[in-house]
């Protein structure tokens, strides 16, 4: 268990995400005096209470339009845990920012407005969380004050959400639902006496106590080489080290490793973290590996555990979350960035597209448009040592990049990590 939780908020526009985050910061006393003063100065709320959403909506256009446009990262802490929180926008056209926030989250808080219940954006965001394998979800049924703290309303929404997330593969114990009022503070940090029928945790209680899944060091070892360190100095004439971040698993001095895509075998002779020589390193550590043989390794290679090295491939199936206004054109030249290697690529076929409402897969859609999730066949110009996203997420993920504009077009996940059960919409 680690003492840092990375979480993201999602929901549709005006459900109260920014207010909820502001409330969390405010009630955990994470707001410093000058920030609060600035918010009080800018608040236009009729009831005279500070508009807590202004604590997170930092851009001028956000304040003017009263919406969130981009992910805002916030840092707060209680005596029990530190939090990195990504507040993401609700508008459909900003779903790419929700994907950004979710890609590093260990937990997502989805909001709904108690008056409207589960809507299309809720389903879309839950599907994005399931796709990216965000391990835990919280449904905050917000604005419970506007439905007179009505239990039946809450229960109906909670059930609909549980049915949907179950169909997306979430187990019963990974989803928690909480009735809250971000504006009034009910069940955010303090238990409310206006919801006597609810005996679960407040949102903060839950965030502080939910188990955190740290980086997976039981996964097979994967180490994309970022750069080669060769000082050629008088003091270190022969030093040659491969710098990188352990993407998955762990490695010890003496381990046999395979360097992909070429497949040479060697052993790890040393692991350096700055001037300290380590015995081992695990997922999340930035280190330098020294190997027994000089194999002419460069940036882009992946050093892997000998027993579990994937076979590099040039053709594979992947799931894409399309993030760009420009739709996918099969056959166009693209780039794929996998680990530290960027290669030319082509999407040869769009096999199907997920219907967000029914969770059915519609065959042969021809293209993917912004916010679509679908399965595609990809061909790359050089062999890539891929893992399935559901086995090793760090080496099962990639970016699809436009070679001309340089824009990121899609989030790519190797294989079919999203397993859904179609439901009646």
């Amino acid at each position: 268990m680690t003492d840092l939780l990375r979480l993201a908020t999602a929901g549709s526009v005006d459900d109260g995400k920014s207010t909820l985050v502001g409330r969390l910061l405010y009630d955990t006393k994470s707001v410093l005096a000058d920030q609060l003063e600035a918010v009080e100065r800018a608040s236009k709320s009729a009831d005279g209470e500070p508009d807590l959403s202004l604590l997170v909506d930092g851009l001028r256009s956000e304040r003017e339009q009263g919406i969130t446009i981009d992910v805002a990262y916030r840092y707060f802490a209680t005596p029990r845990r530190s939090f990195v929180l990504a507040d993401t926008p609700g508008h459909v056209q900003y779903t790419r920012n929700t994907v950004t926030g979710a890609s590093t989250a260990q937990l997502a808080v989805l909001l709904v407005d108690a008056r409207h219940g589960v809507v299309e954006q809720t389903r879309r965001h839950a599907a994005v969380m399931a796709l990216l394998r965000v391990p835990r979800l919280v449904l905050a049924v917000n604005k419970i004050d506007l439905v007179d703290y009505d239990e039946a309303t809450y229960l109906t929404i909670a059930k609909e959400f549980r049915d949907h997330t179950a169909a997306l593969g979430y187990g019963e114990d990974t989803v928690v639902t909480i009735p809250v009022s971000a504006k009034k503070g009910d069940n955010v940090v303090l238990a409310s006496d206006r919801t006597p029928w609810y005996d679960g945790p407040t949102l903060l209680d839950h965030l502080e106590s939910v188990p955190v899944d740290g980086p997976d060091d039981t996964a097979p070892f994967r180490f994309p080489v970022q750069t080669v360190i060769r000082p050629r100095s008088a003091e270190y004439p022969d030093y040659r080290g491969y710098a990188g971040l352990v993407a998955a698993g762990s490695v010890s001095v003496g381990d046999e490793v395979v360097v992909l895509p070429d497949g040479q075998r060697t052993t790890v002779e040393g692991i350096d973290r700055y001037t300290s020589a380590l015995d081992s390193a695990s997922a999340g550590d930035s280190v330098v590996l020294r190997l027994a043989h000089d194999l002419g390794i460069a940036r882009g290679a992946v050093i892997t555990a000998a027993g579990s090295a994937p076979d590099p491939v040039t053709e594979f199936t992947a799931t894409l979350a399309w993030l760009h206004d420009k739709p996918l054109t099969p056959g166009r030249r693209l780039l794929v960035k996998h680990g530290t290697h960027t290669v030319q690529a082509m999407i040869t076929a769009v096999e199907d597209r997920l219907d967000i409402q029914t969770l059915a897969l519609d065959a042969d859609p021809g293209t993917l448009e912004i916010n679509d999730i679908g399965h595609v066949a990809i061909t790359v110009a050089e062999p890539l040592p891929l893992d399935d996203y559901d086995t090793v997420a760090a080496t099962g993920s990639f970016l699809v990049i436009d070679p001309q504009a340089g824009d990121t077009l899609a989030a790519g996940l190797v294989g079919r990590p999203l397993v859904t059960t179609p439901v009646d919409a």
Partner: protein
Amino acid sequence: MTATESGVELRSAASPAGTDQLDVLESEAIHVMREVAGEFDRPVILFSGGKDSMLLVHLAHKAFWPAPIPFPVLHVDTGHNFDEVIEFRDAVVERYGLTLEVASVQDYIDDGRLSERADGTRNPLQTTPLLDAIADHRHDAVFGGGRRDEERARAKERIFSLRTAFGAWEPSRQRPELWNLYNGRHKPGEHVRVFPLSNWTELDVWRYIQREEIDLPTIYYAHTRDVFARDGMWLTSGPWGGPRDGEEVITKSVRYRTVGDGSCTGAVESTATTLDEVLAEVRESRLTERGATRADDRLSEAAMEDRKKEGYF
């Protein structure tokens, strides 16, 4: 009881964790720096001699050891410097064998490309020399020490942040930043600002400085100084001017939380002469670093956002 009346004992915006969290932050920052070394041709580190930029140099040193830091450093010199900071800057350049590039605001004022503002503040004037230096040296990646906890517009910043050929930040067109796969593609003339300290808080920075025994300019620790009050801050006299009528000069024990242009960087009252004492103060502070000490960020609600859009740090 309403939530706001709560008596719950909770800490301020700070990370209470043990050293683990610093290791995570360090690994992330080093990963970012190595990605830049791997993907760009002409990166540069913005280096003012302040604590965040000193942290960048320290992290770069660790990231590429035993090879030297593979980036030059660029100082945008407002001409309104604290002497200690310039001495410190030069000592660091010497110690790490760095190449120092200087973009001088004073040169621009002397030859008329920029004119002094009525309020004497030079922070907003840094943008043009900065962008010119980036263009002249053809830098394609520019490391900054900005942190998301500093300010609301910064909280929206990506770790790899694309700038147009005019140096502009276009917040509504930022690229999605997925997992830890950074996209540094850019067209000729564009560049990428890179913020390895994005996820650090002020307290993390100080804890790390303590753990790593990183040297800082002495003005970060309490010392006695002649100061005068303006806009609720303690300013000091210098080449940028001094007290105006009615502003009384008094001698106080102060330290700086940020180091910037002398005309608009305020000191805070402090008796913290050691790192432990500074850490204790940071833990208890009820003001953000910028709110306490930077007149430039108080100019308007969107002061930082506007300067960032124009190409500021």
